[in-house]
């Protein structure tokens, strides 16, 4: 045993910053390839905004994977439900949305987003109790149940709202761009970046500065030992599942506004991206999820600009490259 004096200075914990440097390196590497600084800045801003939206949708799923060991293939349902619920608020107040006043726009947008989160969170409660609870620890059944749940949710949305695509125009004050020299950055993308960053900081504060966060981090690593310390982890599971569902709902609203449309299968393509983000980030790692989301968005945007034909497979290639470097993801939290 090391015999150390009580007055010895405490060593600083080592930080693994290699994954943080990845998106920075990727961004710098593409400057000479893209050539035009204004195009590069526009693509980078687009990547960050897209990355933040994907992060919001994926953050709940990574905790659900890590903490609960649940393969939720129905996560996309919360995204679509969130977007549809927002239309219930945005449609009747279309005049306020199209008014050229930021505060009037936000006065409608904020309640719409909150309602979407509340409904998605409540749906998460039902899904956890009805679909997930009977199949804890049984991955194959989880895939079947949650995939079935996704199909039921999509068909229910079709039945309630119809098969047509519902337009969801951006609020008037969020249209257009901020012009900095010859660089144009869409206002909505800036808002998306700010919201994504706020969600990331909030999650990090909860995870790192509160006992609840400690429990979640410990539960991601070893659920059994958390229970042996006297904590009822089932309640924590439910809380995390509902929070993850609510965040997916928020992400759904933001994505629908980004695309300016809502449809029941809007989450189909997103789900693939979200799963890639969760896998390359490391199951259960919020930091890994954040970096993974930015990387995926960068590869999609830079790749789409530089080699459009590679766009379809670029994220798969990214996943392969990262898993070859770190087989358990950028930040391995669980041993799974």
């Amino acid at each position: 045993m090391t015999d150390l004096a009580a007055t010895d200075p405490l060593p600083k914990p080592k930080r693994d910053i290699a994954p943080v440097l990845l998106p920075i390196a990727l961004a710098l590497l593409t400057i000479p390839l893209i050539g035009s600084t204004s195009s590069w800045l526009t693509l980078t801003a687009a990547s960050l905004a897209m990355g933040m939206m994907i992060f919001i949708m994926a953050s709940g799923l990574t905790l659900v994977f890590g903490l609960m060991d649940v393969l939720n293939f129905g996560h996309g349902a919360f995204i679509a439900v969130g977007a549809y619920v927002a239309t219930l608020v945005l449609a009747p107040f279309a005049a306020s949305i199209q008014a050229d006043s930021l505060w009037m726009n936000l006065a409608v947008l904020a309640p719409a987003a909150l309602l979407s989160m509340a409904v998605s969170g409540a749906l998460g409660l039902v899904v956890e109790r009805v679909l997930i609870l009977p199949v804890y620890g049984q991955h194959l059944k989880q895939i079947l149940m949650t995939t079935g749940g996704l199909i039921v949710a999509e068909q229910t949305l079709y039945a309630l709202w119809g098969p047509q695509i519902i337009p969801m125009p951006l609020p008037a004050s969020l249209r257009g761009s901020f012009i900095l020299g010859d660089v144009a950055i869409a206002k909505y993308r800036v808002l998306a970046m700010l919201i994504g960053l706020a969600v990331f900081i909030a999650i990090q504060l909860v995870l790192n500065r509160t006992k609840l966060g400690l429990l979640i981090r410990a539960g991601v690593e070893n659920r059994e030992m958390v229970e042996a310390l006297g904590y009822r982890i089932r309640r924590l599971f439910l809380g995390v599942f509902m929070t993850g569902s609510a965040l997916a709902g928020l992400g759904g609203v933001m994505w629908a506004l980004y695309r300016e449309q809502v449809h029941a299968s809007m989450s189909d393509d997103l789900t693939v991206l979200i799963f890639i983000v969760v896998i390359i980030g490391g199951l259960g790692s919020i930091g890994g999820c954040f970096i993974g989301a930015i990387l995926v968005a960068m590869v999609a945007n830079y790749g789409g600009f530089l080699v459009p034909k590679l766009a379809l497979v670029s994220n798969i290639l990214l996943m392969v490259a990262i898993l070859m470097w770190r087989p358990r993801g950028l930040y391995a939290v669980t041993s799974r």
Partner: protein
Amino acid sequence: MSDLLKLSGVHTHIGRYHILQGIDLAVPQGQVTMLLGRNGAGKTTTLRTIMGLWQASSGEISLAGMRIESCATPDIARLGVGYVPESMAVFSDLTVKENLVLAARDGPLDDTQLDWIFGFFPALRRFWLSRAGSLSGGQKQMLSIARAIIEPRKLLLIDEPTKGLAPAIVMALIECLKEIKRKGATILLVEQNFFAARELGDNVLVMDNGTIVHRGEMAALAADVPLQERLLGLSLEAHQ
């Protein structure tokens, strides 16, 4: 001396395997009871069944007169049972401090208790803000034990604490467990290191094939080499 923990006719199945086949045992209050036996005898399963991590298929488990065989693990822990698993199970992503903050379930860390623990395990103070995953095996074991004793517990279930550790660390652990014992703790201790068993044990239970095949005083078993060889296949001296 009254019995704090009692198991009567406890059976445990894991999948299609019948691991515990009618365990009857008693752990007296304020004493250290050693649970010995060959690998695969069912020692770890016994501790996990008491802790509720595996559900007993039948039989009764009572703690201070209260039936607990149907209780969930968190409820058993809240009755004052501390558990140190064989795998140590420290939370690698959390710091030493965070591991102990979680273990101190109902309030802030008690400085007096913390100083007492640092007296045995100074490395924990040194690595207070380091991730538990960066600790050595011995330091992880210290943290695992510290987590179990950071608050007063009625009963400690400890599974092979000296396994794979260097002799110097084993000695430190033995001293720590002796001190915990002197403070009146009740301990059910699974151990393969018979030097540690002889140093710490008041009573001994020997398991084989999911049943208790011997019960008595540790000193008597330590003095009876033929009995050791019959029950364990080797003498205590040979196991050191």
